[in-house]
């Protein structure tokens, strides 16, 4: 052989071997996908306790003894579906919370239709969310609920907590943007001069497919090429295939976003960054973050490319309580809920934190009941 030394020949042989393997795997894909694969999501049993328009309120009962006194309301985002928190039994934030002894409620926003295009953020926060909180308060005869907000659902929860602080006992936010004036995330960059009016005039509600295309475009190398190559590489591992299909099912099940909500979110938050400046208004009422006086736990993902840490972290500095904490999880935007590593961190941490707050409340209540003793004067005085 001329011009080809031994390492190069070996490399060529490796390359050929790899290509044959890839081709073999690729040929197996139709056979595997042709089978009836179990890829159902959101399997944890629940009951619907409230319905209004397209919204449904799901109620999950704790597994075993109830260890957290106040019911927890999970407010999911308007993008994709809440089933992400209950993808499969061993990757389920909901099950993690139930095992920890929490009584969980979760909002399913449903599928908006053209009829819903005039719904604003105010309708979601002061309308639907407030009525849902009322339902829970009545069901449990409790003055307050714990709130857990996810992504935009977290931003909504922040607005709700600022406008109705008396109804929220503890606030937990996860990957929820508050500081929008950052160029770290591409979404923040793209949204700056985005013609949201033009898009809404043309489409009405923002189509889920349009949003999906935008999210895929953020990182085509990983989300369009590497992801499917990985799938082909692991085509013979059934657990991998099933997990993959569950994620596919969830990720491309994207409801449209109500037009006016989207318009306000882009203009007030992404373009004018009003929320963190305490200038955002919902139906005339100013959202003042300093009114958030309840304990706050704020999760963010270190590698989150949609809501970068810079968009989440400053929230804690702006609230009116010292009992606020940022928690970083070494994962991305979705990984915080579905990665096997985060399963051991996210839900258990919430349960622990809520139990600590419950203990603290009991201690304070005990102190109030006990008559105060006069302190003995110091011998130096």
């Amino acid at each position: 052989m001329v011009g080809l030394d031994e390492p190069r020949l070996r490399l060529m042989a490796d390359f050929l071997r790899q290509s044959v393997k890839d081709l073999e795997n690729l040929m197996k894909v139709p056979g595997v996908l042709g089978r009836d694969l179990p890829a159902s999501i959101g399997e944890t049993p629940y009951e619907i306790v409230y319905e209004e328009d397209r919204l449904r309120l799901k109620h999950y009962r704790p597994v075993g003894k109830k260890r957290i006194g106040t019911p927890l309301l999970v407010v999911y985002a308007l993008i994709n579906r809440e089933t992400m928190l209950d993808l499969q039994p061993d990757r389920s934030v909901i099950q993690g919370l139930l095992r920890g002894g929490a009584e969980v409620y979760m909002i399913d926003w449903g599928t908006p239709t053209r009829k819903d295009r005039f719904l604003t953020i105010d309708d979601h926060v002061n309308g639907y969310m407030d009525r849902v909180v009322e339902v829970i308060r009545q069901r449990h005869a409790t003055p307050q609920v714990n709130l857990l907000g996810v992504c935009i659902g977290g931003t909504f929860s922040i607005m709700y907590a600022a406008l109705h602080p008396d109804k929220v006992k503890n606030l937990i936010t996860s990957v929820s943007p508050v500081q929008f004036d950052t160029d770290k995330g591409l979404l923040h960059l793209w949204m700056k001069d985005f013609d949201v009016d033009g898009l809404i005039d043309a489409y009405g509600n923002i189509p889920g497919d349009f949003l999906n295309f935008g999210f895929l475009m953020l990182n085509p190398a990983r989300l369009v090429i590497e992801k499917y190559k990985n799938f082909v590489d692991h085509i013979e591992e059934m657990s991998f295939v099933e997990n993959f299909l569950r994620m596919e099912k969830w990720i491309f099940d994207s409801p449209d976003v109500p037009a006016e909500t989207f318009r306000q979110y882009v203009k007030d938050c992404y373009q004018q960054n009003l929320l963190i400046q305490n200038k955002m208004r919902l139906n005339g009422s100013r959202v003042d973050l300093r009114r958030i006086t309840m304990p706050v736990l704020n999760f963010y993902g270190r590698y989150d490319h949609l809501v970068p840490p810079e968009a989440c972290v400053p929230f804690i500095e702006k609230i009116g309580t010292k009992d606020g904490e940022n928690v970083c999880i070494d994962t991305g935007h979705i990984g915080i809920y579905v990665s096997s590593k985060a399963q051991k961190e996210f839900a258990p941490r919430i349960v622990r934190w809520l139990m600590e707050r419950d203990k603290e409340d009991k201690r304070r209540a005990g102190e109030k009941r006990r008559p105060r003793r006069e302190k003995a004067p110091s011998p130096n005085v």
Partner: protein
Amino acid sequence: MDKPMSEKKQARGRKKKEAVPDDVVLGILQEMGDLWARFFQEQMTSFGKAASTDTANLFFAEASKSDLQQQWQHFIREEINRCFQVTPIGPLRQYQEKASRFIQTFAEWENACGEFSTLLNKPLAQSLEDMEEKIQAEKQEIPVENRFPLWIELLENRYLALYRSEEFMPALHKTLQAVTSVTKAREGLMDDLLKSSHLPTTRDMDELYREIYLLKKRVELLEKELKAQHGRT
């Protein structure tokens, strides 16, 4: 007394009177054929013109992707669109105007999407070049199993660089604008179709939805006021 003519004879007579000479029919057909041939020839000539501009000789030969795309867009803009850019007149002018608008926006959309997809394809080519450079720069051969992850990383970096570049945002905005324009123009056409079928248009339905939305808000407010009044009494 003359016998009345039989019906057959009468019919023959009528046919003779009404018959058009064959040469006239042939003449008309000839004219139509000539007209079509002239039209066809004109179109072919204009197509030839488009193809004989400075870069057009590359159209079928050594054209790079962008040249090919530019030529295609030129052809659509200059030759196809021109057929529809006739000033509308008469009672149907508004429909013609809408149709022209749709065709124009469609061409703009196609143009913008073409440019945008060319832009999005750039990192692919660049990352492959990067990969080649990397392989040549490495002293030792990069094992096969490491090559794909390396390429993905290079591609990811290239996309990030593109998205933060100055050329990307204008292209994105132009594409989005083209998408919204063509969608609105299509809706204009659909509205006419729906109206002619006595069906409500999207705008009609939106008005209705808005009214329902506002009514619901009003009812909600009234309910609250009523509750408050009952609470006081």
